[in-house]
């Protein structure tokens, strides 16, 4: 099968549609914390920096957390 990864052009880093205030992608799966951080590393050099920042925020406790458990389904930005 021929690779058709870039058939639709560059990936929309900013989503094509503004869904501000709407929910996060619905994770009915058990996603696995380690696998999530790993994904940043698998994204290459830029991703390693992202992984490091996310890892550091875990250790230092400094974070801007999107609360995925909120009943409202809206992002909660917490600055402890």
């Amino acid at each position: 099968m021929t690779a058709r990864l870039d058939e639709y052009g560059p990936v929309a880093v900013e989503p094509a549609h503004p869904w501000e205030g709407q929910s996060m992608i619905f994770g009915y799966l058990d996603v696995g914390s380690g696998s999530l951080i790993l994904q940043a590393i698998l994204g290459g050099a830029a991703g390693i920096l992202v992984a490091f920042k996310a890892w550091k925020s875990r250790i230092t406790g400094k974070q801007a957390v999107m609360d995925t458990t909120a009943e409202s389904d809206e992002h909660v930005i917490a600055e402890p």
Partner: protein
Amino acid sequence: MLEADPGSFRDPASHVVFDGDRVLRLLDERGARAWESLSKTRFFNHETQSERLIRAEPLAEAPDGASAALEHPRVPFISYPWEWTFSMLKDAALLHLELLAGSLAEGITIKDATPFNIQFIEGKPVFIDVGSFEEYRRGEPWIGYRQFTRQFLFPLLLRAWVGVPFQPWLRGAMDGPTAAEMRRLLPLGKRLRPAALLHVTLQARMEERLSGTAVRGRLGAAGFDARLILANVDRLHRLIEGVDWDPDVSGWSEYRSCGHVGRDREDKAGFLEAALERHRPERVLDLGANDAYFSDIARQRGALAVAIDGDETVLDSVYRSGSAVSVALTDLTDPSPAQGWAGAERPGLVARARPDLVIAYGLIHHLIYTSSVPPSAVVHWLASFQCPLVVEFVGPDDEMVGKLTANKLHSELHPGRDEASFKDLVSQRFEVIAERSLESGTRVLWQIRPRR
């Protein structure tokens, strides 16, 4: 009256129900919003036209309790990953990655990554779960990554790198091996490959270290974006494209060169065609199909033909040939059972096949002599299909039976193996419509149908 699909319940935003022969997808408010976004994309139109994504037509009015509803064409035959060959799982994995990359380009992502979202229609993989697409939000990682590795990548590596078939594992544990299990399964040399270090060892270690830690929001705050997902998808796509299975010559891959196969093939084809003409079946099950020669005759006559065999080498070859015959890998003495939630989520193979004609050529003697199934039990099993059959009976004097029994004592064999006794057993449950002796003189074909 709507009937719930027992395999579609995990996602509250979208689930499938049946209205007779119609297949409907009911969406809640969230699912309806996601559909609205997906349906407007160039990606959706292109992929449905290419038949890599199943068509979906919105209903003017949704049933009570649903915000919206879609109608899909019915998938003729549902198969599960433990019934797929290596090349089928590989093509399904590549399709999933390509659709994820394509949808991300238009701000949509796929929220899970399971092979159950893909089915094979006329020999081609088709993504059937339109409800899996949802708007991508900046900062979100790929939620399905871990599931993808467990249900696609690790099974493929198991076969390609370790030489172990993945089907028994997936049948035994539908979620697939964990990264930690996979690390133990890989030999040291393979474990040191870069892909194994990243997707297996590192994932296993990080899962161990970070279990239960809230990181999803932290990633977004640290600058995660869709480009990182695409880089990972691209890496996985290249990895999987390069993964190959080089099957050994199996006991059945050379079957076609056996003397009796070539000699009898035309007679058996003619006999089958007469049965197809008489019964005009819509769904034909070819048991012990080998190279699917007879399944293909049924398909050419307009039937949905499902070729079932326990040999991955021959079925993989059928699939790779581009045949429109559906294939299902299973050992007929141990066919895929009903399993999953409540034992109903994934129905057994025979319940899914629902044949109205069964072909059992070159099979019965293997059940009797190789698998030691008593002839009476074989007939009972044939009757369980509740439809006409064409069967080949091979008598005790046949050369092949001689080989199968070379190391068996007479007392170790079940009674009822000779033609007269077996025909007696058959006649108790079936009416014999047609009969033809083959040139060898030790083989006979019967067209039979259940007694009313």
